């Protein structure tokens, strides 16, 4: 099986898994769901780190793009998880 087919299979299955678990999130928590899933979309950090890491094929410009991408992705990750935590604590019983 080609690499692409494997990746594509994973992609489709992940969408179904996502659909199944996210339809079970109650409307009350939809805002934290959005901010939390936002943080997860910061997973692009993996690509950003690889671009910024300076492998044999990288150029100065590609490294630069990678570094900026790390900043953006980190804002997303840290900001997203922290603000989600802040909101979810409000829903806790006092």
């Amino acid at each position, binding site marked *: 099986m080609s690499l692409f087919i494997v*990746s594509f299979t994973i992609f489709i299955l992940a969408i179904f898994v996502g659909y199944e678990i996210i339809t079970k999130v109650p409307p009350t928590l939809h805002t934290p769901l959005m901010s939390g899933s936002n943080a997860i*979309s*910061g997973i692009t950090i993996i690509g950003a780190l690889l671009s910024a890491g300076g492998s044999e094929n990288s150029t100065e410009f590609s490294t630069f793009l990678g570094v900026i991408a790390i900043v953006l992705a980190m804002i997303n990750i840290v900001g997203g998880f922290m603000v989600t935590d802040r909101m979810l604590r409000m829903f806790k019983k006092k």
Partner: protein
Amino acid sequence: MSQIINFSYLIAAVLFIVGLKNLSSPKTAPRGNMLGAIGMLIAVVVTLLDKGVVSYGWIFIAVIVGSGIGAYMAKTVQMTNMPQMVAIFNGFGGGASLLVAGAAYLEMSQVFNQGGEVPGLQWDIALILSALIGAVTLTGSVVAFGKLQGIVDEQAVAIPKLFIKSLGIALGICALLVIADPFDMGLFFLLVIVGSLVLGVLLVMPIGGADMPVVIALLNSYSGLAAAATGFVLHNNGLIIGGSLVGASGLILTNIMCKAMNRSLANVLFGGAIVSDTDKAAIPGKEFYEGKVKQADPEEVAMILENAQSVVFVPGYGLAVAQAQHANQELGKLLQERNIQVRHAIHPVAGRMPGHMNVLLAEAEVPYEQMVEMDAINPDFSRTDVVIILGANDVVNPAARDDPKSPIYGMPILDVDQAKTVFIVKRSLSPGFAGIPNQLFINENSLMVFGDAKDVLQKMIQAIKEL
């Protein structure tokens, strides 16, 4: 090593999934969020061990800077401004994907120029998609942020459809040229990026303030899909799984929001304003209310509340604008102490993003058990003594249910008119987003309480304490 790294990405993906699963209840949700964060930490740490990462200086600085900005924003943002924050974060996610796609292209060009082996068609398509979706998400989110923050005019701005279509076709041609011969067509790749950035602006400009919840949810989905496309470029399953989870989540929320407004996604994106100009001509003016509106003052409301057994509050965005959540919570608590059943009925589009109103009420320490969604509370209105509407308008207009001629006919509403007495706290009789008068305000069992929501609620609290 590569095996260990890939295995770690799998663990990270599992943690994301389990984390999201824990969001199914407010009790387990904080733990779920923590699990997601741990998954992300694992993904970052193992990537640093990858053989492709050889220098750490700039990475270290970028991580510190990004984390600092993110933490600052998360700590300081006000809950009313949450939609803006999520919007701009969506943009950052899309921007990161775009930049990574650009960097990947540059690296692969280097390989190509040295006569090395380059990947095939699938890689080219993934590259284009990742740059395109990333760029649209970036600029679209910035415009959405601007509209929500009040920097950009919130009104729907008409953009000629022909222009958007032409741009779309031009983008398609450039994309095909890049796919045909990726490394000699660098200029066209740049054109795809620039065109997509412009497209993002043009797609969000025509969307009015009332439709923002849909747009944010959709951009949320895009930011995930951009990450997934980047995963195809880098052959990285961690990105693909993480990205598609977010993509699915955003699409579900988009769908929920569209249903709550009785509009199709296409209509939200390209339909312009909710009420067309021809419909506007048929909308009655002030004479609609003339002589038919009854009034009450806060003291009278207090007396009726005293004798009620069940009270339902219907908060709308106006409540948050007036910063009246806390007064609302205080009144609710006071009523509960008098053994009156208190609930808050929340329409899916009550706030500026999905679930926004719940967060605003939670911040004011309203227990989440008291927040009831539309479908759950609607059958109960006929057994409810008093309904108090705070800043909601179109979502309680019975015309949406009863009058096939109404422009909002078919939109799901809260059936508040079936309660015994309905109080509407409002500054004036001005219309809501749909721009139409509200049948509810002239109903037999309706009474208007004119004034600022916070002010009126405080007077009610005072009056009840004195009773």
